[in-house]
């Protein structure tokens, strides 16, 4: 959505004072819930995300079971109070689509063959939303899955790049998301560089896409370090106590 009255750059800085390749502040905490098998709380800019992992457990209903491997059931949900205008509770078409692409991204990275007929349920709750919730949700899911001890090949991570006022930038903020020219959320396996999730809306030339993707991947790698630090923080202490 273009709006000529809104200026997204001032003196070469973005509206929130960031440079083009800066991330918003990120805080990650692993293992925050009592009931869940694994969990993560993540703040990313104004986003507040909680993720709970349950399983592997018997997949219900039965017809969803795969007798060779576990299925991944991600459920992305926005709390009614998480957005400016109250959202009606329950899934809508947008949240179902996001749930689907996140489930598929996670399936690639988990070692599912060890758990035939089971499901791994990943509940992503957006408590406060401010641009980039799917990337924040997937990033928190990666930490929660590791916290649940689910065997995995890597900790998946996500970050978006985009274009505002003709310039490529990392990690769109709220106004940038609303009034920018393009948004490119990307999830990767940071160890191999494989792309697990990719969406784009807006308008990019091929050249711009190449640069934006490179920017998003660099952002993913930075966020990946924060994920690892959060896990080490949680379990270093527990090992020392032992």
């Amino acid at each position, binding site marked *: 959505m273009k709006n000529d009255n809104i200026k997204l750059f001032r003196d070469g800085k973005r509206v929130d004072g960031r440079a083009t390749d800066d991330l918003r502040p990120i805080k990650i905490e692993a293992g925050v819930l009592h009931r869940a098998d694994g969990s993560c709380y993540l703040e990313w800019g104004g986003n507040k995300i909680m993720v709970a992992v349950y399983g592997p457990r018997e997949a219900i209903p039965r017809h969803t079971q795969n007798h060779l491997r576990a299925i991944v059931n991600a459920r992305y949900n926005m709390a009614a109070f998480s957005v400016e205008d109250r959202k009606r509770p329950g899934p809508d078409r947008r949240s179902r689509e996001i749930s689907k692409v996140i489930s598929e991204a996670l399936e690639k990275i988990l070692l599912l063959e060890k758990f035939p007929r089971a499901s791994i349920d990943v509940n992503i709750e957006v408590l406060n939303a401010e641009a980039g919730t799917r990337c924040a949700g997937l990033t928190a899911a990666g930490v929660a899955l590791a916290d649940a001890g*689910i065997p995995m090949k890597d900790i998946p991570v996500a970050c978006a790049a985009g274009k505002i006022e003709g310039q490529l930038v990392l990690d769109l903020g709220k106004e940038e998301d609303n009034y920018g020219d393009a948004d490119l959320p990307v999830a990767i396996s940071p160890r191999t560089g494989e792309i697990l999730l990719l969406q784009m809306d807006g308008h990019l030339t091929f050249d711009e896409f190449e640069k934006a993707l490179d920017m998003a991947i660099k952002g993913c790698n930075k966020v990946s370090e924060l994920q690892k630090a959060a*896990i080490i923080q949680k379990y270093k202490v527990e090992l020392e106590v032992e």
Partner: protein
Amino acid sequence: MVENMNNNLVLPGDKLSTSEELMPGDGTFEEGGIIRAARVGIYCIDEKQRSATVKPATSTPVIIKRGDIVLAEVRSVKSSMVIAEVIHVKGKKRVISSDTNGTLRVSEISKSYVKDPSTEFSLGDIIRAKVQQVKPSVQLETKDPRFGVIQSFCSKCRHVLTKNGNSLECSKCGNRERRRIADDYGTYDLDQL
């Protein structure tokens, strides 16, 4: 012997060894000749098996293993065996991620001869048992005095039976029943199950 490499945590994806040197063990996976960690924990080498393993730092999915002490609920009593669903593995808090259908053959019930399983167990009994085998199916045994029924219900009125000497009694209807009971029937500690 399990050798602890160092006290640093390894994370999923971290390189541990190569498949030329070691076998990929518990908590690892192999990809293109490289053995990597599949979970958060401490890298260990099992010298006997010549395998790389990751001792988990997190809780992990519960998979029923040979030698586990479990609780199971009796689902049916047949002439040669008892079918019971494993509901809990001792010391674990999480639900079981593997197949939970257990079988207890008549010969594995007691050290002494049992002719008919229905004299020892009844539908709905909660039993403590040891896992003998997991593949191709979960096989249980209850020979030790620690094993057997830890809770059972009156076959007439479904009230919980209480231990009275060597037999069980229903405090509601006075019905007396016989079971192969575990030595802590009715006196177990929830945290020790």
